[in-house]
Each structure stands twice: as structure tokens, then as C-alpha cells.
């Protein structure tokens, strides 16, 4: 811990106060998580057994926290990351545990507001608050953080977090498609690799990197298999699939892969037996835009799948969801050089984050969306934007024009980390679903 006078941002919060707030929020969160899981179970009563594992892992302050704690006591390092541009393979290759730490808790936002203005994206404010009181076990347990400087919020967040932890910034070039960008990005990762090696005292050898890449290949395979399953009539509710996606960010990835494959086996059997999770003519919704992060910010998925008429989320375009493990590292030759290049490319080039731009106006993102819409037969898109998330908000028109052209209705939904607007959003979402339903029937 740094001396308080050295701190750049953090407002001192007394140990006692922090503990009090933490315990209060923790108790509330535990309740919320239980409630959400119960609600998910209710809307999908005949869910497969394999789902239970993910509910367990999804619960913060439980199994996974203890596991990581124990691994740490045995000398393992934990490396957190705030954004999916962080190369997980490098963390795994150094025998460290990767965990994603961007926060989805609502209540800590108030603490974040003490440091940054309310106009800032709620993910950033919540993460700051979480760090102040040590709420998230994963953020608390991280020995260091990888913070890609994707947007303004993330950039300053990394400074603020550096008050309490070593923070390794990663600077992605905003233009992906040029030799100099790739060169720069590779150098960034090389620096990062050295830092990881130093912290973990493990040399990332070719053999280790290969093993890590193969672990992630298996995870990607299971991940894509699950997405493939969501293509046709719904055998899994969208919320559950999204939860499976998200648990991969803090679970032991090998075990997660096994469990996901198990789940997929079961779901595939259900496809054959035509056991649907909800009526096959339920409007098929895609969520695009700002991430919906477990636990608290499950507002939108909950609303869509509990609304009447009900919708089912068959796809999302969130960096916390369908995009996370979608791309494999494509190694041509198993030399250190090529593996490293492949890892670097994997995290930069296929990313469709709106922080990138190009002459054709982030066409990569448009292509990703339209391909998914076609493949999953999406009826309508909900474009989810946090107040303060400039990039997703500004790209809305770009996406809307494209979707208008292919005649897919899109609905712009801006929200914040708050429960107050649930009622209001509910009415709007239901109206949208009503409209979709009439289109489907038509």
C-alpha cells in the first residue's frame, strides 16, 4: 500500500468506513445474485443440469474466490485486465491466473462519483468504487492489472487504479490496418510480456506459449460451439448463454471449457429432441453496444427475457459476451516469433471495438454485426449505451443506417448503473418487442 500522500487520485476512505460499505454492498449483492439466478431459473424451468455449474461460478464471494485465494497462497500470481484487448495467452503462459475486473456492481458507483464526475461511464465509476472498498474479489486479488487504453474512461481509470496496484497500460493504435500500427502493437505486447515475466518470475518460453494457445483454442472451440447452438430455435435462454460467456472471464479456463462442452452436448441432444427453452417464434433479439456485466448490470437481459411479450437474446455484440472468445489465435508455424505475432494480431485486428476507426468507418464492426444478424436470424437489435460511453453512442447512427438498409429494426437504449429506470425501460423494451412480435407473425 502506498502512502496516502503519494496517491494521485484516491480520496481517503477510512478502513472502518470502507468495511462498513463493503459489507453492506456485499450482502445486497449476494441477495441480488441469488435473486437473478432464481429469476433465470424460473424463466427456463427445464434447464439442463450442466447449467448449475455456471450459476455457482457466477456467484461472487464463493468457490472461485476461495480457489484463487488458495492458488495465490501457493505462489501463483493473479493478473487482472479491464478489457478484452489484453492477451490472455501471455498471462496463462506465465502460469498466472487471468481475471477480468471491469465492474458490473451498481452501488459502488456512488463512491466512484467522489473521484470522477457523474458524466463518466458507469463501468469506470463502478470499478473505481469497487477498488476503494475492495469489493470485487478478483480486483482485490489481482497482483497487477493490464489496462488497455481504449477510451478516455479506461485511460484515466488506469491512472486511478495505479494508486493501489501496479498497472500495465497497453496502448492500442486506433488505426489497425497498417504496418506501423502492427509494429507498435507488437512492441507494446513485448513490453507487457517482459513485465509479466518479471512479476511471475516465469519465462514465457515457446513451449509454454504453445500450451497456453492450445488451452485457449479449446476454450474458443467450446465458446463457438455454444454460439453455433444459439443459431437455430432457442434451446438455451439468452441470459444463460451470456452468463456462460461471462464466467469464462474469471473461471479456471480449462474447467470452464469442459463444462461448456458438457452443456453443449446436452443442448445438442435437446435440439435433436426438439426441446425448446421458449417458443420458437419468440422474437429473436440481439444486444449491441456497451457491455452488460454481471452481477448488477443484468438489467437489460433480464428485461428482455422477462418482458411480455417475451424476447430471447440469440446474439450479442458485447465485449463481455459473444466477441470475447470468438477469434482463435491462428498460428502458422510454432516458432516463438510466429506465435507471438499471432497472439498480437488476434487481440488487435479482429476487434470491433468502436475505439478503432478506419477510412471505411469501422466497417469491421458493421460486417461482424450483419454476419451475426444473418446467421442467427435476428429480428431486432437493442443498441445498449451507457450514459457517458461516447464511442458506442457516436457509432449508433453508423450502425442504424446499415440496419435500416437490411430492414432490421434497432432500438437505442441508453441507461446508467441504476435501478431507478427499470420501470421506464421496461415499457420501452416491451413496446419494441411487441413491434418485433407483430413483424415475426406477419
Amino acid at each position, binding site marked *: 500500500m502506498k502512502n496516502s500522500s503519494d496517491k494521485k487520485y484516491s480520496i481517503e476512505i477510512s478502513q472502518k468506513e470502507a468495511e462498513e460499505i463493503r459489507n453492506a454492498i456485499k450482502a445486497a449483492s449476494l441477495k441480488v445474485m441469488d435473486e437473478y439466478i432464481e429469476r433465470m431459473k424460473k424463466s427456463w424451468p427445464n434447464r439442463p443440469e450442466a447449467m448449475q455449474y455456471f450459476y455457482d461460478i457466477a456467484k461472487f464471494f464463493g468457490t472461485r474466490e476461495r480457489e484463487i485465494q488458495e492458488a495465490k497462497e501457493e505462489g501463483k500470481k493473479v493478473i487482472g485486465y479491464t478489457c478484452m484487448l489484453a492477451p490472455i495467452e501471455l498471462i496463462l503462459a506465465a502460469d498466472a491466473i487471468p481475471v477480468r475486473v471491469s465492474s458490473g456492481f451498481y452501488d459502488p458507483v456512488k463512491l466512484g462519483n467522489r473521484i470522477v464526475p457523474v458524466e463518466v461511464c458507469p463501468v469506470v465509476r463502478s470499478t473505481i468504487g469497487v477498488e476503494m472498498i475492495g469489493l470485487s474479489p478478483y480486483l482485490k486479488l489481482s497482483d497487477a492489472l493490464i489496462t488497455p487504453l481504449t477510451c478516455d474512461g479506461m485511460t484515466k481509470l488506469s491512472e486511478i487504479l495505479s494508486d493501489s496496484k501496479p498497472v500495465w497500460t497497453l496502448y492500442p493504435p486506433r488505426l*489497425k490496418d497498417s504496418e506501423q500500427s502492427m509494429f507498435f502493437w507488437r512492441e507494446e505486447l513485448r513490453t507487457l510480456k517482459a513485465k509479466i515475466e518479471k512479476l511471475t518470475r516465469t519465462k514465457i518460453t515457446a513451449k509454454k506459449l504453445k500450451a497456453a494457445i492450445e488451452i485457449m483454442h479449446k476454450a474458443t472451440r467450446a465458446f463457438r460451439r455454444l454460439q453455433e447452438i444459439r443459431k437455430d430455435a432457442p434451446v438455451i435462454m439468452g441470459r444463460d448463454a451470456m452468463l456462460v460467456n461471462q464466467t469464462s472471464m474469471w473461471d479456471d479456463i480449462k474447467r470452464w471449457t469442459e463444462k461448456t462442452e458438457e452443456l453443449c452436448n446436452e443442448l445438442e441432444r435437446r435440439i435433436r429432441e426438439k426441446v425448446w427453452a421458449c417458443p420458437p417464434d419468440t422474437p429473436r433479439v440481439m444486444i449491441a453496444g456497451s457491455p452488460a456485466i454481471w452481477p448488477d448490470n443484468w438489467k437489460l437481459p433480464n428485461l428482455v427475457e422477462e418482458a411480455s411479450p417475451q424476447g430471447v437474446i440469440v446474439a450479442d455484440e458485447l465485449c463481455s459476451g459473444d466477441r470475447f472468445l470468438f477469434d*482463435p489465435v*491462428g498460428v502458422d508455424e510454432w*516458432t516463438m516469433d510466429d506465435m507471438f505475432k*499471432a497472439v498480437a494480431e*488476434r487481440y488487435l*485486428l479482429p476487434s470491433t471495438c468502436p475505439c478503432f476507426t478506419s477510412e471505411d468507418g469501422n466497417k469491421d464492426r458493421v*460486417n461482424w454485426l450483419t*454476419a451475426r444478424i*444473418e446467421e442467427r436470424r435476428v429480428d431486432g437489435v437493442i443498441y445498449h449505451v451507457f450514459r457517458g460511453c461516447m464511442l458506442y453512442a457516436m457509432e449508433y447512427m453508423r450502425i442504424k443506417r446499415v440496419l435500416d438498409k437490411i430492414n432490421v429494426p434497432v432500438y437505442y437504449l441508453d441507461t446508467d448503473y441504476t435501478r431507478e429506470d427499470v420501470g421506464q425501460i421496461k415499457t420501452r423494451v416491451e413496446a419494441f418487442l411487441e413491434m418485433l412480435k407483430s413483424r415475426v407473425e406477419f
Partner: protein
Amino acid sequence: MWLEVLSEILKLTIFAGLALAGILAILIWKKDLKTKVSYLRFFVQATAMTAFFFIFSYTTQLLLILVVIFALSIFFGRFFCGWLCPFALYLDLVAAVRKAFKIRYWNFPDKLNKFLNRFRYALLIFFIALPFMLEKIEPWQWSLAKFLIGPFKLVSVLLGPVEPLVIPWESSLKLYNINLSYPYASVIAFYSGENLALIAISIFIAITLASSFVVRRFWCRFCPTGVSFAVLNRFKIFRWIPLLRLNKVEEKCTKCGICKRVCPAQVTDVYEVKGGDITTSMCMLCLRCVEMCPYEDCLKLNMAGKTLFKSRNWLEPSKIE
């Protein structure tokens, strides 16, 4: 006598071995399409080399062979370079050895590669003109005529890469009465004279193999034969003819960049061009990009509109098991 019998037996064994290897290669390929097209390609290359040996032993009409190869390449583009060329087999084998030792390769900078892409046409003219220029300098009488009627002279620059390791005619590389050859060896021998032939050829072999150890398909970046195929496909009037085409579906491509990195000829168009027909005069149709693209149906090899081979989600184990 017994030597001839032995050589016949040898030939037959090679044939049988190849046939077996072929069946094996196809079986492996069928079982798991992932990165296996490369094995199939190695096999086809080896077969092609043997085939060229037999073709050479039945005809000395080298010009005819050349004409056939060129006529075919009007229709099949640089398929020859990717799949049939014996020289390419040696270069690929060197690369395979490098791979086995886990040694990295180097790329030309993009700019240099693109420059070479245009510059190779000048090189082609130079390569073809070279024999004539040398003829001019050497005060040999009738040499031009000699050159044209000789069995192996004019065409030898263009036919260079096609020569298999063993050739059925007299060569300057001999081992126990077997005539060995190497691409361009005869041309080099012809101009360096009897005494220097062996040295000059050895230097050439060393340079080409070493360079392709460092840079994938080094020679192919400016090989006159390859360039002349490319020229055929570059002219507008020939543009519509090629039957084999690479195709990309823009929406499926996530711009992951894999196709660009794995291309042994450093073709960037597959990555950069948005979609549709992406065949270029640089592409040798080796299909490495297609087999490595991780998205189902994103890259395709089409023949006259019919898809022969396409990219697939290679994380999935093959369905044919």
C-alpha cells in the same frame, strides 16, 4: 543389363510408393481438413516432380511442354506454382526443415514486396533477354542458331524450375552415371563453361536454398516462369479466363489478419480487398490462407463457379471421423 532391370524396379517402387503415399495423404486430408491441405500439396508436388521426370524421358520437345504448361496456366492461373513446380518443392522442403527446427522466417517489408511485384516484369524481360545478350557479347559464330535449335536452350530459362532432380539427358551434374539437375543448372553451366560449371551451380544451389530458408519462397518472388504466368493473368484480355479463383465473403471476414501472415508469397490482397474475387497475379493458389482462415465459408477456391475448397472453423474436429 541387370542395371537396367534394377532401374526399372526402382522406378516401379517409386511409383508404388507414391501411390501409397497418395492414398494416405488423401485419407489424412479427408479425415481432418485442418492444415492438411498442405500435406496433400506436398504429395502433389512430389508426384508432379516424378511426372515431369517421366515426361522428360519420353519427349525432348521441351518447347511443347512449355507451351502446354503455359496454355494450362491461362486457365488455372498460378496453380502450377502452388502445386506442381518441382523447384517450389525444394524451397518448401527447406522451409519444412526450418519449421522442424523451430527457427523463424523473415518477411520482406511490405513495400519491398509490392515493389518486387511490379519489378519482376522487368526482371522477366531481363531473364529472357539475357541469353541473347550473352550471345551478342560472345563472338561465337552461329551461336544464335545453335541456341534456337539446341534441345534445351531458349526455353531453358522458362523451363528451369520444371526440371526434376534426375533428368534423362546429359548434364553437368553427375553422380554414378545418373544425370542430376537443379533448376537453371543447365543455363548456368552453359554460360559459365565446362570448368566453372560445377562451382557456379553449387553456388546457385546454396544461394537459393539458403535464401528460402530465411524468406519463404524467396525465388518465387521474381522467378521468370512464375512471372510469365502472372503476366498471362494480368492482361485484361485474359482476365476473364482463369477458372480457378479465390473468393472472399466480406461479411464473414473479421479481418483477423491470419490469411495475410500465413501466405508464403506475402500476398496482402486477400486480407485487404473487401470481398469478392481476390485472386491476384502474386497468388500461387497454394491455399494456405484458405485452410488457415478460421471462419466457415469465408474464403473459397472456386473453379468455374463451383467451390472446391473453403475455409472452415478449424477448431472443430472434422465431421468425417
